[in-house]
């Protein structure tokens, strides 16, 4: 028997959802026009005014926003309210140069936490449950997002944050956690750690897990479900739009319901920007419908995806998105952290290396491995092993600072990194995620 956190919204008839969206988009566009000069200018350049947007069908007339816009306007350029009305920020992991910072009013936090509460209830959560949140707390949206949703549902919330697996297991067992929230790779890792300690899947009290922030496959889902003895649910989101909970899986486990009362989804051709017909594969674009502090109209996620509007047996009427099938840019998600090759290049040049490098990402025992092969430059070479090893360590630490995740650096001889047609192959991703 399906359960809902907000049944009147989650199972609303389609015409009701559309009505709600049409009403909200008019207000949201007006809000942006009045308060965000940067976007107003983009609209003016296209000759669009708020009067042109009467329904969600008109959203396609609006200009796009990309991560570049967010960087360019850092930190306050897309703020839709007075700073004094904001109560929190979150930020993406380090990107080239500037970070992306998202702002929230209390209203924004509330609607975000409603979204994660829906995800928890869809995974079978009630106030009887004990929710163990081992997403990172802090600037990352994962921890506080699920934490807030868990509070709304009335679950006992264990704010564990990430890491320290022995302690995670101790609390999980001693306090009989029933719902686990973390990245899928960490869930798999916990599963292995439990097995190593001789704890069988039936010995824990877990019944469900809500896993997101990185790509994972059906095979991985089955593995996690088996090793923890749970049902594993996917959750989707991005800092720019709020955080996890933009979309979530129901018990059908066939796509994630997008919270359409807050986010309007389009699929576009990443090259032309044209909106693609129903059911096409393309880049996912989100328009916020009722945000105050950080309203984003037509934000390009760069995630390649397909939308599915066929009715779902769970009773929810909101459109479903598939697991992202890839990226329209070169971003990689490694251990839940967004990594761009350009960030690595920036660090290498700054540290005096040539930009000849190769990134190799793989997955061993469900944890991402992250290796960077770098060619040693002639003026860095020395007869002293200690000197070269110090250089290697210092590069690793500079990369860790930039990326928020530590790669293993391998120094290699000049001209040894494979070049095809004169151009180096920068990224070798051996994980089969899509």
């Amino acid at each position: 028997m399906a359960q809902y956190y907000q049944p009147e919204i989650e199972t609303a008839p389609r015409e009701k959802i559309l009505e709600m969206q049409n009403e909200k988009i008019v207000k949201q566009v007006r809000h942006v026009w009045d308060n965000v000069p940067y976007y107003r200018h983009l609209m003016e350049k296209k000759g669009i005014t708020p009067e042109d947007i009467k329904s969600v069908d008109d959203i396609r007339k609006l200009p796009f926003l990309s991560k570049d816009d967010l960087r360019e306007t850092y930190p306050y350029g897309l703020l839709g309210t007075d700073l004094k009305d904001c109560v929190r920020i979150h930020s993406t992991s380090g990107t080239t140069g500037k970070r992306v910072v998202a702002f929230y009013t209390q209203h924004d936090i509330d609607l975000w936490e409603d979204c994660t509460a829906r995800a928890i209830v869809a995974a079978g959560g009630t106030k009887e449950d004990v929710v163990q949140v081992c997403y990172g707390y802090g600037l990352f949206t994962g921890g506080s997002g699920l934490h807030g949703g868990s509070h709304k549902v009335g679950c006992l919330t264990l704010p564990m944050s990430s890491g320290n697996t022995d302690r995670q297991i101790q609390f999980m067992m001693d306090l009989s956690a029933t719902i686990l929230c973390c990245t899928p790779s960490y869930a798999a890792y916990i599963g292995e750690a439990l097995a190593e300690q001789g704890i069988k899947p039936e010995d824990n009290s877990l019944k469900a897990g809500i896993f997101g922030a990185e790509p994972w496959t059906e095979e991985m889902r089955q593995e996690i479900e088996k090793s923890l003895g749970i049902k594993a649910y996917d959750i989707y989101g991005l800092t720019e739009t709020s955080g996890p909970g933009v979309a979530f899986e129901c018990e059908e486990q066939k796509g994630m319901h997008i919270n359409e009362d807050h986010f309007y989804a389009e699929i576009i051709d990443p090259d032309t920007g044209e909106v693609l017909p129903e059911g096409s594969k393309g880049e996912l674009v989100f328009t916020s419908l009722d945000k105050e502090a950080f309203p984003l109209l037509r934000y390009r996620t760069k995630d390649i995806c397909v939308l599915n509007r066929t009715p779902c047996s769970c009773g929810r009427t909101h459109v479903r998105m598939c697991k992202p099938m890839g990226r329209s840019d070169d971003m990689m998600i490694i251990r839940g952290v967004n990594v761009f090759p350009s960030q690595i290049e920036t660090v290498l040049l700054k540290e005096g290396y040539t930009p000849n490098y190769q990134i190799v990402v793989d997955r061993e025992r469900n944890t991402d491995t992250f290796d960077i092969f770098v060619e040693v430059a002639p003026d860095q070479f020395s007869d002293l092993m200690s000197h070269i090893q110090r250089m290697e360590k210092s590069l690793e630490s500079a990369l860790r600072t930039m990326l928020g995740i530590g790669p293993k650096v391998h120094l290699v001889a000049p001209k040894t990194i494979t070049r095809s047609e004169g151009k180096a192959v920068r990224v070798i991703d051996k994980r089969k995620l899509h």
Partner: protein
Amino acid sequence: MAITQLSIFLMNQPGALVDAVSAISGAGANIRAMSLAEANDFGILRIIVSDSDKICKLLGDKYLISKTEVVAARMSDRSGALYPILVALSDANINIEYMYAFTGSDADEAYVVFRVNDVKTAEAVLNSNGVSTLSDESLKL
């Protein structure tokens, strides 16, 4: 008076050393002494050859190669001969980063190559203790 050592960056994998040695012999050099240091991914081949300038130029296209001044001390090839040399260097507060040895053309002759933090002082200390050191010139003979 010090001698020139060539250091060559090699990958730590099968075939890397044989390629380098083949390039050195192809350049017509005789390796008088050598040592190989290893890290996880790479290694450093250190060699003493008769004509380091020429070899460095010939191998420079293919290899990452650097020149370092090292001290080659002559000693007799018998038990206890190294001890006074090390004492002299230690007393002068010279730090030895690494060292290796080779035997000379005479039966009683050996050479120890020192990579030190201060080549000039090290040589002066050894010479004043009656230990002779090699020069690039003497290697060509």
